[in-house]
């Protein structure tokens, strides 16, 4: 770099610099906006598809789904799944339109980053019937076993979340335990080599089910399909 002052006229030079940066800035902004607008519908569609696929996965036997929004007073109300809102629950129905269960999203801190999961709840059996990891940046080969390990995933087939007689609380909260020490139907058996990730899943499930399961159970009527 030459540090010696140049003989350029300073005004023109500053103006040129400004002009160059503004022109490039505007050009770049335009390019980004065009790409964003161009790809947005496709991105939203892909995300919705991924979530929908996951809902069918965590509620075995489902042929149609419907999104519901929860509010303190009105309970669960049918809404369009495209409206993004936090308290969303997806209900799955079979061929005859009878309710199979509800799929709930939950998230919490994993080992690397926030873990996003989806689980299916069956009010009829009062158990968790399915589980799927939506978002995870866990270590490849170790922590990401929470998505693949068949022993771990079998935890969520019939995980007990039955309610106390007042229907307000769970009899037993879901808890993670060390690998090989699962004795109760509400315990989540961990994974050796993915201790933190699998424990995180157990804890996220525990916190989320404690809030959602009593609500879902007591508002079961809201999910009955209205005659078309």
């Amino acid at each position, binding site marked *: 770099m030459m540090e010696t002052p140049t003989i350029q006229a300073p005004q023109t030079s500053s103006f040129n*610099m400004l002009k*160059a940066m503004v022109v*490039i800035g505007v050009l*770049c902004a335009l390019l980004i906006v065009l*790409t964003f607008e*161009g*790809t947005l519908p496709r991105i939203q569609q892909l*995300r919705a598809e*991924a979530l929908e696929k996951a809902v069918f996965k965590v509620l075995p036997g489902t042929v149609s789904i419907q999104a519901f929004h929860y509010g303190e007073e009105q309970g669960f109300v049918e809404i369009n799944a495209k409206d993004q809102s936090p308290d969303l629950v997806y209900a799955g129905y079979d061929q005859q339109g009878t309710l199979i269960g509800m799929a709930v999203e939950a998230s919490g801190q994993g080992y690397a980053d926030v873990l996003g999961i989806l689980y299916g709840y069956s009010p009829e059996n009062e158990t968790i019937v399915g589980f799927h990891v939506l978002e995870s940046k866990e*270590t490849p080969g170790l922590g990401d076993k929470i998505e693949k390990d068949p022993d771990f995933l079998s935890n969520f087939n019939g995980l007990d979340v039955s309610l106390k007689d007042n229907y307000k609380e769970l009899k037993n909260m879901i808890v993670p335990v060390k690998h090989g020490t699962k004795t109760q139907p509400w315990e989540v058996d961990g994974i050796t080599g993915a201790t933190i990730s699998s424990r995180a899943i157990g804890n996220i499930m525990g916190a989320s089910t404690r809030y959602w399961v009593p609500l879902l159970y007591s508002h079961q009527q809201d999910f009955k399909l209205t005659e078309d």
Partner: protein
Amino acid sequence: MKDLHSPNSNKGFLASLAEGPSTDEFIKGLWRDNPVFVQVLGMCPVLAVSNTAENALAMGLATAFVLLMSNLLVSSLRNFIPKQVRIACYILIIATFVTITDYAIQAISVDLHKSLGAFISLIVVNCLILSRAEAFASKNTLGKSMLDALGMGAGFIFALFCLGAVREILGNGTLFGLSLLPGNFEEWIVMILPAGGFFTLAVWLLLFNVVNQRKSET
């Protein structure tokens, strides 16, 4: 593009150093000046995203695309950008194409975007791209800059693929998800962890240098 030996107008002395047949602008990136194996540039994505061949290829393509587009813009605007604010302008241009690539990958596949993760946004700080903009595109004609970007991009893809393929085969027993090794093969988990990236890169660098040394001796 026949008058390749003429020095490049009033812009920079590096341009005159870069004289040569036009194919050389392309070929040099593949081997002689390979961005990874010779210049050792852009190590962050090279080590982090080369855990499978598919990720490596996707990352290489994304970087090559950004490199090509930013070289194109930098080269065509090279007489318009004042020297004092050139780096800011280059970064602006590079960041724009990285953002575009990010959206494009999201629109192509959610899974791919998930596996590349934060490394797409980090293409912005890949020194390979800024170095090509600063050292080459800002001093050369559009045609030459495009050839340079294509060559460097191809060299980067090639290098990432070399790492990704080895790591996936040893660490997972597969290539592009297809089983290659016998079922009783015990996977070397370390190869798909970050440490494996360093091991693989070291071996490739060794091979590259041995070959180059042999060549210069003969």
